[in-house]
C-alpha cells in the first residue's frame, strides 16, 4: 500500500513538472500534453470495459461525445451567467455519460462477446447519424461552441492560457485514474475480472454477470463523459466527430496497443497514439497505414501490448540471460532497421504518387533526393525491404533462444 501511495505521489509530481521540462514549454507542446491527458482519461475508461470486464466495444465515443455536448452546453450556460467556474464543467460531462451509460447499457450489456461488440457498433452509428439530424442541440457538422474564459475566475485563474487548461486536465486525469484504480479493487471490480475470465462460474457462485457488466459499463461511460468534458474545455467546440466511429476505433487502438492487462497500459497507449496522431501526421500522410500495421502486429505478436512488453523486459532484467537477449537484439536491430527503411520508402513513394500527383515525381526522403518516375527508387527500396526481412527471419531464432533461456532461468528460480 505504501508503494502504491509513493507511485501516485510520483505521478502527481510528474504531471505538475511536465509542462516546465525544457522542450515542453511551448504552447504547442503543452497542447499536446493536454490532448494526451484527455486521451488518457478516455483510454482508462475504455480499459474498464475491454481490459477489466472483457467487453469489446466499438461505440465508446458515444459517451465521450455526449459528455462533451453536455459540457459544452453547460459551458454556454456559464457564459450566460451561471456562477460555476470552468474546471467543474467535466462533472457535467461525467453525469451525462453516466446517464446515457445507464440507458444504453441496459440495452447493450444483456449480451457479452460478439453480440455486444455488434450492438455497440450499431448504437454508435445510430447516435452519430442522429446527431447530424438534430442541429439545434448538436450543431450539425460545425458543432457547438462556447468560451472557457467567460466564466467566474477560480483561485484567480481565468483559463485563457494553455498551461492552465493543462493543469485542469492533469488534475482530472489524476483524480479519475485514482478513482478507477480504487474502483477495480472493490468487490464489483474483482467480480468484473471474474466475469471477463469465466462468466459461467460467476453465475454459479450466485452473481449475475449481466448486472456486473451493466455496472462496469455505466461507470466506464461516466469517465468517458468526463473525458468529453475536458475535450470541450480544451477546444471550446464539440462537433459530431466527437461521437464518430473513428474516435471509437481510435480509443480501441490506444488501449490495445498500450496493453490491456496493465492499468498503465491505457495511459501508455494514449500517450503513444496521440503523439503519433499529432507529430507523425506532420511528416507523412500515410500515418494511418503505419498505425494499422502497428496494431495488427501487436495483435498478432505482442498480445500484452507496450505495457506487456515493458513488463516482460523488466522481469528478465536481473537474469543472466539479459546479456544474451541484449546481444541478440543488437544482431537483429540493423536488419529490422533496413527492412523498415525499405518498406517505409516504398509506402511513402506510392502514397505521394497517389495522393499528391500535382507535387511531381521529384521528392526527398530521409534526406535523399529521388526521382519516382524512374524505377530505381522503387527497386532500391524493394531490395532493402526484402533483404532486410530475410535477414531478420534468419536472425530471429537467436532472439527466441535468448528468451527461452531467460524463461528457463526464471522458472528455475521459482521452483
Amino acid at each position, binding site marked *: 500500500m505504501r508503494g502504491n501511495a509513493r507511485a501516485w505521489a510520483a505521478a502527481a509530481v510528474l504531471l505538475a513538472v511536465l509542462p516546465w521540462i525544457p522542450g515542453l514549454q511551448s504552447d504547442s507542446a503543452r497542447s499536446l500534453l493536454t490532448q494526451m491527458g484527455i486521451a488518457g482519461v478516455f483510454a482508462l475508461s475504455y480499459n474498464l470495459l475491454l481490459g477489466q470486464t472483457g467487453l469489446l466495444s466499438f461505440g465508446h465515443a458515444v459517451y465521450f461525445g455526449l459528455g462533451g455536448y453536455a459540457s459544452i452546453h453547460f459551458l454556454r450556460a456559464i457564459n450566460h451567467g451561471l456562477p460555476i467556474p470552468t474546471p467543474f464543467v467535466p462533472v457535467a460531462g461525467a453525469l451525462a455519460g453516466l446517464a446515457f451509460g445507464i440507458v444504453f447499457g441496459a440495452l447493450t450489456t444483456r449480451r457479452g462477446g*460478439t453480440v455486444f461488440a455488434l450492438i455497440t457498433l*450499431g448504437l454508435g*452509428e445510430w447516435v452519430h*447519424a442522429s446527431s447530424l*439530424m438534430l442541429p439545434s442541440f448538436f450543431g450539425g457538422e460545425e458543432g457547438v461552441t462556447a468560451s472557457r474564459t467567460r466564466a467566474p475566475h477560480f483561485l484567480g485563474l481565468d483559463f485563457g492560457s494553455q498551461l492552465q487548461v493543462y493543469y485542469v486536465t492533469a488534475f482530472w486525469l489524476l483524480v479519475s485514474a485514482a478513482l478507477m484504480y480504487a474502483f477495480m479493487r472493490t468487490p464489483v471490480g474483482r467480480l468484473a475480472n471474474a466475469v471477463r475470465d469465466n462468466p459461467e462460474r460467476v453465475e454459479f457462485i450466485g452473481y449475475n454477470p449481466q448486472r456486473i457488466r451493466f455496472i462496469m459499463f455505466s461507470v466506464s461511460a461516466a469517465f468517458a463523459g468526463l473525458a468529453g468534458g475536458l475535450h470541450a474545455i480544451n477546444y471550446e467546440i464539440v462537433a459530431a466527430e466527437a461521437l464518430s466511429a473513428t474516435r471509437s476505433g481510435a480509443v480501441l487502438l490506444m488501449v*490495445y496497443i498500450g496493453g490491456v492487462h496493465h492499468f498503465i497500459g491505457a495511459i501508455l497507449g494514449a500517450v503513444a497514439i496521440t503523439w503519433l496522431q499529432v507529430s507523425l501526421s506532420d511528416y507523412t500522410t500515410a500515418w494511418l497505414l503505419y498505425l494499422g*500495421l502497428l496494431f*495488427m502486429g501487436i495483435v498478432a505478436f505482442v498480445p500484452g501490448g507496450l505495457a506487456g512488453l515493458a513488463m516482460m523486459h523488466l522481469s528478465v532484467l536481473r537474469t543472466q540471460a539479459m546479456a544474451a537477449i541484449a546481444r541478440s537484439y543488437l544482431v537483429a536491430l540493423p536488419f529490422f532497421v533496413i527492412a523498415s527503411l525499405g518498406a517505409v520508402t516504398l509506402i511513402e513513394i*506510392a502514397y505521394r504518387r497517389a495522393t499528391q500527383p500535382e507535387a511531381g515525381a521529384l521528392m526527398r526522403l530521409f534526406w535523399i533526393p529521388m526521382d519516382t518516375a524512374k524505377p530505381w527508387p522503387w527497386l532500391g527500396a524493394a531490395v532493402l525491404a526484402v533483404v532486410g526481412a530475410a535477414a531478420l527471419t534468419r536472425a530471429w531464432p537467436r532472439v527466441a533462444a535468448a528468451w527461452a533461456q531467460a524463461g528457463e532461468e526464471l522458472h528455475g528460480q521459482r521452483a
Partner: protein
Amino acid sequence: LKEIVAFSLLNGAVYGLLLFMLSSGLTLIFSLMGVLNFAHASVFMLGAYFSWQISRWVGFWPALVLAPLACGFIGAGIERWGLRRVHARGHVAEILYTFGLAYVIGELVIMAWGRNPIENHVPAAIDFAAFRLFGTSYPFYKVLMMGISVAMFAFLYLAFKRTRLGLVIQAALTHPQMVSALGHDVPRLFVLVFAIGSALAGLAGVIGGFALLTEPNMAANLGPIVFVVVVVGGLGSIPGAFLASMLIGLLQTFAVALDYSWLDLFRVMNIHVAPDSIWREVWAVKLSQAAPILPYVLLVLMLIVRPRGFLGTRET
C-alpha cells in the same frame, strides 16, 4: 403513387440483394469459424476497385470473373497467413486483427487509387434500358445485379445442400473434431470458406461499385449495415441473412421516398405539439432523412424483442 411503389420495390430489391451478397459471405465465414470479419466490407471495396482497374485493361466481362477471383485469393491469404496465427488467442483477438486489417486495406486503397472517388461508371456493355415501366426506362445493369445475386443464392444453397464438399463444410460447422477425425483437413476448409466468402464480397463489389460511389470510405459506410443484416437475420443463418437484407433494402428505399414526419402523424391524430417545444425538432425529422438510421433502429428493436434474430438458432 403506383409508380413510386413499383420503382421503390425494384430499387429496394436491388439494394437488398447487394446487401445479401455481402452478408452471405460474412455469414458463411462467421458460421464456420466464429470470426466476425471486419475486413469483409474492405474486400468488397477491393472488388469494386479491382473491377474498375481490370475493366480498363481487358473490359467488363473478364473483370466480372477476375476481380472476385483476386478477392478470393486475398481472402485465402488473410486466413492462411494472418488469422490462423491469431486463432489460438480467441475470438476477440481475431476480431481485432480483422479490424486492423480494415484500416490497412483502406489506406492501401488510398495508396493505389488516391483519396478521391474514381469514375466508376456503368460499363457501356451493360448500360442500356432493359424495359420501360410507367414511361421510365429501367437500366439493364440493375437487372443484371438482381440476376447475379439470385443466381448466387441458388448456387450457395445447392452447393451446401447437394454437394459432398458442402456437406463436409456443414459438418465442420458443428463437429470440427469429428470431421477432422474422418480425415478431412479442417484448416484447409477454413481457407476455402474464407476464400469463397471473400470472392462473394468481391463479386458484390464489382456490381455494387458502379451503383454506389467507389471511394476509399465505401467500406466504412457499408460495413456497419452489413453487420446489422447479419445480426438481424440471425448470426450464422444464410436464409436469415437473405430475409434481413431484403427487409433492410426495402425499408431504406421506401423511407427515402416518403416525406412524412411524426408531426404529420400527430396532425392526423389531433395531437398538438407546441411550436417552441424542445422535442419539436425530433418530431419534425422526416422519414426520408431518417433512412440512414433505420437499420440501427431495427437492430436495437430486434435485440430487445428477439435477440437471436429472424432465423438464428443460438443466442451468442
